[in-house]
Protein backbone atom coordinates (compact mmCIF):
# COMPACT_ATOMS: atom_id res chain seq x y z
CA UNK A 1 0.00 0.00 0.00
CA UNK A 2 1.30 3.43 -0.89
CA UNK A 3 0.50 6.11 1.65
CA UNK A 4 -2.40 8.35 0.67
CA UNK A 5 -1.74 12.04 0.15
CA UNK A 6 -2.61 14.19 3.14
CA UNK A 7 -6.32 14.38 3.56
CA UNK A 8 -6.45 17.94 4.69
CA UNK A 9 -8.94 20.18 2.92
CA UNK A 10 -7.20 23.35 3.95
CA UNK A 11 -4.92 25.09 1.54
CA UNK A 12 -1.32 24.36 2.34
CA UNK A 13 0.80 27.37 3.22
CA UNK A 14 2.60 28.65 0.20
CA UNK A 15 6.35 28.75 0.40
CA UNK A 16 7.92 31.98 -0.75
CA UNK A 17 9.74 31.79 -3.07
CA UNK A 18 8.12 28.56 -4.17
CA UNK A 19 10.27 25.56 -4.98
CA UNK A 20 8.63 24.49 -8.22
CA UNK A 21 10.16 21.01 -8.25
CA UNK A 22 8.69 20.34 -4.82
CA UNK A 23 5.31 21.76 -5.82
CA UNK A 24 5.23 19.55 -8.89
CA UNK A 25 6.03 16.47 -6.78
CA UNK A 26 3.24 17.41 -4.37
CA UNK A 27 0.87 17.90 -7.29
CA UNK A 28 1.85 14.44 -8.53
CA UNK A 29 0.77 13.10 -5.13
CA UNK A 30 -2.68 14.63 -5.71
CA UNK A 31 -2.19 17.88 -3.81
CA UNK A 32 -4.41 20.43 -5.57
CA UNK A 33 -3.22 23.28 -3.37
CA UNK A 34 0.35 22.69 -4.48
CA UNK A 35 -0.85 22.56 -8.06
CA UNK A 36 -2.60 25.92 -7.63
CA UNK A 37 0.64 27.43 -6.28
CA UNK A 38 2.53 25.86 -9.17
CA UNK A 39 0.04 27.41 -11.58
CA UNK A 40 0.57 30.86 -10.05
CA UNK A 41 4.32 30.52 -10.42
CA UNK A 42 4.51 29.14 -13.93
CA UNK A 43 1.38 30.29 -15.80
CA UNK A 44 2.76 33.71 -16.86
CA UNK A 45 5.80 32.10 -18.44
CA UNK A 46 3.76 29.31 -20.07
CA UNK A 47 1.05 31.66 -21.35
CA UNK A 48 3.57 34.22 -22.62
CA UNK A 49 5.52 31.57 -24.51
CA UNK A 50 2.39 29.97 -25.97
CA UNK A 51 1.00 33.34 -27.07
CA UNK A 52 4.22 34.19 -28.92
CA UNK A 53 3.86 30.95 -30.85
CA UNK A 54 0.11 30.70 -31.54
CA UNK A 55 -0.36 34.50 -31.76
CA UNK A 56 -4.09 34.59 -31.05
CA UNK A 57 -4.76 35.34 -27.33
CA UNK A 58 -7.95 33.24 -27.18
CA UNK A 59 -6.17 30.27 -28.72
CA UNK A 60 -3.24 30.84 -26.37
CA UNK A 61 -5.62 30.70 -23.41
CA UNK A 62 -7.08 27.44 -24.65
CA UNK A 63 -3.68 25.86 -25.25
CA UNK A 64 -2.40 27.04 -21.86
CA UNK A 65 -5.40 25.46 -20.18
CA UNK A 66 -4.77 22.16 -21.97
CA UNK A 67 -1.09 22.32 -21.06
CA UNK A 68 -1.72 22.94 -17.37
CA UNK A 69 -4.27 20.13 -17.17
CA UNK A 70 -1.76 17.85 -18.88
CA UNK A 71 0.87 18.93 -16.32
CA UNK A 72 -1.55 17.90 -13.57
CA UNK A 73 -2.49 14.66 -15.26
CA UNK A 74 1.01 13.48 -16.10
CA UNK A 75 2.91 15.06 -13.19
CA UNK A 76 4.02 11.61 -11.96
CA UNK A 77 6.33 11.48 -14.98
CA UNK A 78 8.37 14.44 -13.76
CA UNK A 79 11.81 13.50 -12.50
CA UNK A 80 14.00 16.26 -11.08
CA UNK A 81 17.08 14.19 -11.90
CA UNK A 82 16.37 14.78 -15.57
CA UNK A 83 15.50 18.48 -15.48
CA UNK A 84 13.75 21.27 -13.62
CA UNK A 85 10.00 21.65 -13.23
CA UNK A 86 10.17 24.88 -15.23
CA UNK A 87 11.98 23.14 -18.08
CA UNK A 88 9.57 20.20 -18.02
CA UNK A 89 6.43 22.34 -18.03
CA UNK A 90 7.67 24.77 -20.68
CA UNK A 91 8.69 21.85 -22.91
CA UNK A 92 5.10 20.58 -22.75
CA UNK A 93 3.83 24.11 -23.41
CA UNK A 94 6.14 24.56 -26.37
CA UNK A 95 5.30 21.20 -27.87
CA UNK A 96 1.54 21.77 -27.62
CA UNK A 97 1.74 25.29 -29.02
CA UNK A 98 3.81 24.13 -31.97
CA UNK A 99 1.37 21.28 -32.61
CA UNK A 100 -1.48 23.77 -32.75
CA UNK A 101 0.31 26.16 -35.06
CA UNK A 102 1.20 23.35 -37.45
CA UNK A 103 -2.34 21.98 -37.41
CA UNK A 104 -3.77 25.44 -38.17
CA UNK A 105 -1.14 25.97 -40.84
CA UNK A 106 -2.02 22.64 -42.46
CA UNK A 107 -5.71 23.62 -42.46
CA UNK A 108 -4.94 26.99 -44.04
CA UNK A 109 -2.75 25.33 -46.63
CA UNK A 110 -5.56 23.00 -47.59
CA UNK A 111 -7.82 25.99 -48.13
CA UNK A 112 -5.44 27.98 -50.27
CA UNK A 113 -2.34 26.40 -51.59
CA UNK A 114 -0.35 29.61 -51.41
CA UNK A 115 2.12 29.13 -48.59
CA UNK A 116 3.31 32.68 -48.25
CA UNK A 117 4.32 32.62 -44.63
CA UNK A 118 3.29 36.16 -43.86
CA UNK A 119 3.66 35.90 -40.11
CA UNK A 120 6.16 38.52 -38.97
CA UNK A 121 8.52 36.28 -37.02
CA UNK A 122 11.13 38.97 -37.18
CA UNK A 123 9.05 41.02 -34.75
CA UNK A 124 9.08 38.18 -32.24
CA UNK A 125 12.78 37.72 -32.63
CA UNK A 126 13.40 41.41 -32.12
CA UNK A 127 11.13 41.43 -29.09
CA UNK A 128 12.68 38.37 -27.51
CA UNK A 129 16.16 39.72 -28.04
CA UNK A 130 15.35 43.22 -26.85
CA UNK A 131 13.14 42.32 -23.92
CA UNK A 132 15.63 40.08 -22.21
CA UNK A 133 15.92 41.86 -18.92
CA UNK A 134 18.65 39.54 -17.83
CA UNK A 135 21.72 40.99 -19.42
CA UNK A 136 23.27 37.53 -19.54
CA UNK A 137 20.61 36.14 -21.85
CA UNK A 138 20.83 39.09 -24.21
CA UNK A 139 24.60 38.93 -24.24
CA UNK A 140 24.56 35.17 -24.85
CA UNK A 141 22.04 35.47 -27.69
CA UNK A 142 24.19 38.14 -29.29
CA UNK A 143 27.26 35.94 -28.95
CA UNK A 144 25.71 33.45 -31.40
CA UNK A 145 26.36 33.73 -35.09
CA UNK A 146 23.53 35.31 -37.10
CA UNK A 147 22.47 32.02 -38.62
CA UNK A 148 22.58 30.17 -35.27
CA UNK A 149 20.42 32.82 -33.61
CA UNK A 150 17.93 33.03 -36.46
CA UNK A 151 17.64 29.27 -36.84
CA UNK A 152 16.98 28.80 -33.12
CA UNK A 153 14.53 31.67 -32.69
CA UNK A 154 12.63 30.99 -35.93
CA UNK A 155 12.14 27.38 -34.95
CA UNK A 156 11.32 28.06 -31.33
CA UNK A 157 8.94 31.00 -31.70
CA UNK A 158 7.77 30.38 -35.27
CA UNK A 159 6.97 26.72 -34.71
CA UNK A 160 8.94 25.91 -37.86
CA UNK A 161 10.66 22.61 -38.56
CA UNK A 162 14.32 22.71 -39.45
CA UNK A 163 13.24 22.07 -43.05
CA UNK A 164 11.05 25.20 -43.01
CA UNK A 165 13.88 27.15 -41.42
CA UNK A 166 16.34 25.96 -44.07
CA UNK A 167 13.94 27.05 -46.79
CA UNK A 168 13.37 30.45 -45.22
CA UNK A 169 17.03 31.12 -44.69
CA UNK A 170 18.05 29.63 -48.01
CA UNK A 171 20.50 27.28 -46.33
CA UNK A 172 21.20 23.56 -46.70
CA UNK A 173 19.38 21.14 -44.40
CA UNK A 174 22.49 19.70 -42.70
CA UNK A 175 23.76 23.22 -42.08
CA UNK A 176 20.58 24.24 -40.26
CA UNK A 177 20.48 21.03 -38.22
CA UNK A 178 24.06 21.61 -37.15
CA UNK A 179 23.59 25.32 -36.46
CA UNK A 180 20.61 24.61 -34.24
CA UNK A 181 22.60 22.17 -32.20
CA UNK A 182 25.90 24.04 -31.91
CA UNK A 183 24.02 27.32 -31.34
CA UNK A 184 22.05 25.78 -28.48
CA UNK A 185 25.19 24.26 -27.00
CA UNK A 186 26.89 27.64 -27.11
CA UNK A 187 23.86 29.26 -25.50
CA UNK A 188 23.80 26.56 -22.81
CA UNK A 189 27.47 27.03 -21.99
CA UNK A 190 27.19 30.82 -22.03
CA UNK A 191 24.21 30.71 -19.63
CA UNK A 192 25.82 28.04 -17.49
CA UNK A 193 22.85 25.67 -17.73
CA UNK A 194 23.88 22.34 -16.25
CA UNK A 195 21.86 19.43 -14.93
CA UNK A 196 22.82 16.84 -12.40
Amino acid sequence: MTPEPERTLERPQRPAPPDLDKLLYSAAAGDQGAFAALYDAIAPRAYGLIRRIVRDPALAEEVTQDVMVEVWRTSARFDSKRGTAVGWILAIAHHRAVDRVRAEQAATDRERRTTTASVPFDEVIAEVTARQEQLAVRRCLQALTGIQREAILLAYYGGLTYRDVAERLGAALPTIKTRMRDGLIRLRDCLGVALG
Partner: protein
Amino acid sequence: MTDIHTLAGAYALDAIDELERARFDRHLAECPSCAAEVAELTETMAVLSDATAEAPPPGLRAAVLARSAATPQTRLAERRPAVRRPAVRWQRLVAAAAAIIALGGAGAVGYQVASNSAHSHNAPASAESKKIAAVLAAPDARLTSAKVTEGGHVTVIASPSLDEAVAVVARLPSPGLGHAYQLWVISHGTPRSAGVLAAGSTSATELLSGVRGAQAIGVSREPAGGSRTPTQPLVTQLSLT
Protein backbone atom coordinates in the same frame (compact mmCIF):
# COMPACT_ATOMS: atom_id res chain seq x y z
CA MET B 1 27.88 8.12 -33.01
CA THR B 2 25.62 8.43 -36.02
CA ASP B 3 24.43 11.40 -37.96
CA ILE B 4 21.08 11.23 -36.16
CA HIS B 5 22.78 12.80 -33.17
CA THR B 6 22.96 16.18 -34.89
CA LEU B 7 19.15 16.27 -34.55
CA ALA B 8 19.48 16.94 -30.79
CA GLY B 9 19.15 20.71 -31.31
CA ALA B 10 16.20 20.49 -33.68
CA TYR B 11 14.58 17.99 -31.31
CA ALA B 12 14.98 20.30 -28.31
CA LEU B 13 13.36 23.09 -30.36
CA ASP B 14 10.46 20.86 -31.52
CA ALA B 15 11.71 21.67 -35.01
CA ILE B 16 11.14 18.18 -36.40
CA ASP B 17 8.06 16.36 -37.64
CA GLU B 18 6.34 13.59 -35.72
CA LEU B 19 8.01 10.80 -37.68
CA GLU B 20 11.51 12.07 -36.94
CA ARG B 21 10.50 12.71 -33.35
CA ALA B 22 9.45 9.09 -32.90
CA ARG B 23 12.71 7.90 -34.44
CA PHE B 24 14.77 10.20 -32.26
CA ASP B 25 12.83 9.13 -29.15
CA ARG B 26 13.94 5.56 -29.84
CA HIS B 27 17.50 6.79 -30.25
CA LEU B 28 17.33 8.68 -26.93
CA ALA B 29 16.22 5.54 -25.13
CA GLU B 30 19.52 3.88 -26.08
CA CYS B 31 21.81 6.86 -25.78
CA PRO B 32 22.00 8.33 -22.26
CA SER B 33 24.48 11.03 -23.25
CA CYS B 34 22.12 12.19 -26.03
CA ALA B 35 19.22 12.26 -23.58
CA ALA B 36 21.31 14.35 -21.18
CA GLU B 37 22.22 16.75 -23.95
CA VAL B 38 18.61 17.15 -25.08
CA ALA B 39 17.56 17.78 -21.48
CA GLU B 40 20.11 20.56 -21.09
CA LEU B 41 19.24 22.16 -24.40
CA THR B 42 15.55 22.11 -23.45
CA GLU B 43 16.39 23.78 -20.14
CA THR B 44 18.40 26.38 -22.01
CA MET B 45 15.39 27.50 -24.04
CA ALA B 46 13.26 27.57 -20.87
CA VAL B 47 15.60 30.24 -19.49
CA LEU B 48 14.46 32.57 -22.28
CA SER B 49 10.82 32.38 -21.17
CA ASP B 50 11.31 35.04 -18.50
CA ALA B 51 11.43 37.62 -21.26
CA THR B 52 8.08 36.69 -22.75
CA ALA B 53 6.20 36.12 -19.49
CA GLU B 54 2.87 37.90 -19.27
CA ALA B 55 -0.18 37.76 -17.05
CA PRO B 56 -2.57 35.05 -18.24
CA PRO B 57 -6.27 35.93 -18.68
CA PRO B 58 -7.98 36.18 -15.26
CA GLY B 59 -10.46 33.34 -15.80
CA LEU B 60 -7.79 30.85 -16.75
CA ARG B 61 -6.73 29.93 -13.22
CA ALA B 62 -10.20 28.90 -12.11
CA ALA B 63 -10.77 26.97 -15.32
CA VAL B 64 -7.48 25.09 -14.98
CA LEU B 65 -8.10 24.21 -11.33
CA ALA B 66 -11.67 23.10 -11.93
CA ARG B 67 -10.74 20.98 -14.90
CA SER B 68 -7.73 19.42 -13.23
CA ALA B 69 -9.87 18.62 -10.20
CA ALA B 70 -12.05 16.48 -12.45
CA THR B 71 -9.08 14.89 -14.24
CA PRO B 72 -7.62 11.69 -12.77
CA GLN B 73 -3.85 11.57 -12.71
CA THR B 74 -1.73 9.06 -14.53
CA ARG B 75 0.12 6.78 -12.13
CA LEU B 76 3.46 5.45 -13.23
CA ALA B 77 3.42 2.01 -11.66
CA GLU B 78 0.67 -0.62 -11.56
CA ARG B 79 -2.29 -0.25 -13.87
CA ARG B 80 -5.06 -2.37 -12.48
CA PRO B 81 -8.33 -0.62 -13.16
CA ALA B 82 -10.44 -3.14 -11.26
CA VAL B 83 -8.54 -2.48 -8.03
CA ARG B 84 -8.06 1.22 -8.60
CA ARG B 85 -11.60 2.19 -9.36
CA PRO B 86 -13.00 3.10 -5.94
CA ALA B 87 -9.79 4.89 -4.96
CA VAL B 88 -9.88 6.98 -8.10
CA ARG B 89 -13.35 8.25 -7.40
CA TRP B 90 -12.36 9.12 -3.85
CA GLN B 91 -9.19 10.87 -4.98
CA ARG B 92 -11.06 12.88 -7.56
CA LEU B 93 -13.51 14.00 -4.94
CA VAL B 94 -10.79 15.16 -2.60
CA ALA B 95 -8.94 16.82 -5.46
CA ALA B 96 -12.12 18.60 -6.49
CA ALA B 97 -12.71 19.67 -2.92
CA ALA B 98 -9.23 21.10 -2.59
CA ALA B 99 -9.51 22.92 -5.90
CA ILE B 100 -12.83 24.46 -5.11
CA ILE B 101 -11.70 25.60 -1.72
CA ALA B 102 -8.58 27.05 -3.29
CA LEU B 103 -10.82 28.93 -5.71
CA GLY B 104 -13.09 30.21 -2.99
CA GLY B 105 -10.15 31.20 -0.85
CA ALA B 106 -8.48 33.06 -3.66
CA GLY B 107 -11.72 34.69 -4.71
CA ALA B 108 -10.75 33.84 -8.24
CA VAL B 109 -14.15 32.65 -9.35
CA GLY B 110 -16.56 34.45 -7.09
CA TYR B 111 -20.11 33.36 -6.97
CA GLN B 112 -21.52 35.05 -9.98
CA VAL B 113 -25.21 34.54 -9.59
CA ALA B 114 -27.89 36.99 -10.60
CA SER B 115 -30.25 38.27 -7.93
CA ASN B 116 -33.23 36.12 -8.95
CA SER B 117 -31.58 32.81 -8.16
CA ALA B 118 -32.79 30.40 -5.56
CA HIS B 119 -30.35 30.93 -2.74
CA SER B 120 -29.29 34.01 -0.85
CA HIS B 121 -26.42 36.00 -2.23
CA ASN B 122 -26.49 38.61 0.45
CA ALA B 123 -24.71 36.21 2.73
CA PRO B 124 -20.99 36.89 2.86
CA ALA B 125 -18.89 34.81 0.50
CA SER B 126 -17.18 33.15 3.44
CA ALA B 127 -20.51 31.68 4.61
CA GLU B 128 -20.99 30.24 1.16
CA SER B 129 -17.42 28.97 1.13
CA LYS B 130 -18.12 27.18 4.41
CA LYS B 131 -21.24 25.60 2.94
CA ILE B 132 -19.29 24.53 -0.11
CA ALA B 133 -16.60 23.02 2.13
CA ALA B 134 -19.30 21.18 4.07
CA VAL B 135 -20.74 19.67 0.89
CA LEU B 136 -17.29 18.56 -0.25
CA ALA B 137 -16.49 17.03 3.13
CA ALA B 138 -19.85 15.27 3.49
CA PRO B 139 -19.46 11.50 3.76
CA ASP B 140 -22.21 10.93 1.21
CA ALA B 141 -20.87 13.48 -1.30
CA ARG B 142 -20.76 12.13 -4.83
CA LEU B 143 -18.94 13.62 -7.77
CA THR B 144 -20.11 13.48 -11.36
CA SER B 145 -18.49 15.24 -14.25
CA ALA B 146 -19.51 15.74 -17.86
CA LYS B 147 -17.68 17.05 -20.86
CA VAL B 148 -19.84 19.42 -22.87
CA THR B 149 -19.87 18.57 -26.58
CA GLU B 150 -19.31 22.16 -27.67
CA GLY B 151 -16.43 22.57 -25.19
CA GLY B 152 -15.85 22.84 -21.44
CA HIS B 153 -16.83 20.76 -18.44
CA VAL B 154 -19.44 20.70 -15.71
CA THR B 155 -18.70 18.96 -12.42
CA VAL B 156 -21.26 18.45 -9.66
CA ILE B 157 -20.57 17.30 -6.12
CA ALA B 158 -23.86 16.52 -4.40
CA SER B 159 -24.63 15.64 -0.78
CA PRO B 160 -28.19 14.35 -0.27
CA SER B 161 -27.79 14.49 3.52
CA LEU B 162 -27.03 18.23 3.39
CA ASP B 163 -29.56 18.74 0.60
CA GLU B 164 -26.93 20.78 -1.25
CA ALA B 165 -24.59 20.45 -4.18
CA VAL B 166 -21.64 22.33 -5.62
CA ALA B 167 -21.49 22.83 -9.38
CA VAL B 168 -18.27 23.82 -11.09
CA VAL B 169 -18.83 25.16 -14.59
CA ALA B 170 -15.57 25.39 -16.50
CA ARG B 171 -14.87 26.98 -19.82
CA LEU B 172 -18.12 26.51 -21.66
CA PRO B 173 -18.33 28.21 -25.05
CA SER B 174 -19.42 31.84 -24.85
CA PRO B 175 -23.21 31.98 -24.39
CA GLY B 176 -23.33 34.92 -26.81
CA LEU B 177 -24.25 38.55 -26.40
CA GLY B 178 -27.10 39.10 -23.93
CA HIS B 179 -27.12 35.44 -22.86
CA ALA B 180 -26.06 33.53 -19.78
CA TYR B 181 -25.82 29.96 -18.55
CA GLN B 182 -28.45 28.84 -16.06
CA LEU B 183 -28.34 25.86 -13.71
CA TRP B 184 -31.35 23.64 -13.04
CA VAL B 185 -32.20 21.08 -10.38
CA ILE B 186 -34.36 18.48 -12.09
CA SER B 187 -36.86 16.50 -10.00
CA HIS B 188 -39.34 14.13 -11.63
CA GLY B 189 -38.67 15.73 -14.97
CA THR B 190 -39.37 19.27 -13.74
CA PRO B 191 -36.50 21.73 -13.81
CA ARG B 192 -36.21 24.36 -11.06
CA SER B 193 -33.78 27.24 -11.43
CA ALA B 194 -30.70 26.86 -9.21
CA GLY B 195 -28.90 30.00 -10.30
CA VAL B 196 -27.88 32.05 -13.30
CA LEU B 197 -24.31 32.86 -14.17
CA ALA B 198 -23.36 36.45 -14.96
CA ALA B 199 -24.18 37.36 -18.57
CA GLY B 200 -21.45 36.11 -20.87
CA SER B 201 -19.71 34.18 -18.11
CA THR B 202 -18.34 30.77 -19.11
CA SER B 203 -16.94 29.54 -15.78
CA ALA B 204 -18.27 29.65 -12.21
CA THR B 205 -18.63 27.74 -8.96
CA GLU B 206 -22.20 27.51 -7.63
CA LEU B 207 -23.83 26.26 -4.46
CA LEU B 208 -27.14 24.57 -5.26
CA SER B 209 -29.83 23.94 -2.66
CA GLY B 210 -32.72 21.50 -2.57
CA VAL B 211 -31.04 18.63 -4.35
CA ARG B 212 -32.35 15.83 -2.15
CA GLY B 213 -34.54 13.56 -4.22
CA ALA B 214 -33.55 15.34 -7.42
CA GLN B 215 -32.56 13.18 -10.36
CA ALA B 216 -30.26 15.51 -12.26
CA ILE B 217 -28.55 18.86 -12.60
CA GLY B 218 -28.89 20.57 -15.97
CA VAL B 219 -27.30 23.56 -17.64
CA SER B 220 -28.96 25.62 -20.36
CA ARG B 221 -28.20 28.77 -22.31
CA GLU B 222 -30.75 31.49 -21.59
CA PRO B 223 -31.29 35.21 -22.11
CA ALA B 224 -29.19 37.14 -19.54
CA GLY B 225 -30.84 37.07 -16.10
CA GLY B 226 -32.27 33.62 -16.69
CA SER B 227 -35.64 32.11 -17.49
CA ARG B 228 -38.42 30.49 -15.42
CA THR B 229 -38.05 27.25 -17.31
CA PRO B 230 -35.38 26.26 -19.83
CA THR B 231 -36.18 27.87 -23.18
CA GLN B 232 -33.53 25.94 -25.01
CA PRO B 233 -32.35 22.32 -24.94
CA LEU B 234 -29.98 21.60 -22.06
CA VAL B 235 -26.32 22.03 -22.88
CA THR B 236 -25.57 19.15 -20.55
CA GLN B 237 -27.27 17.11 -17.85
CA LEU B 238 -25.64 15.26 -14.97
CA SER B 239 -27.44 12.41 -13.28
CA LEU B 240 -27.53 12.44 -9.48
CA THR B 241 -28.86 8.93 -9.13
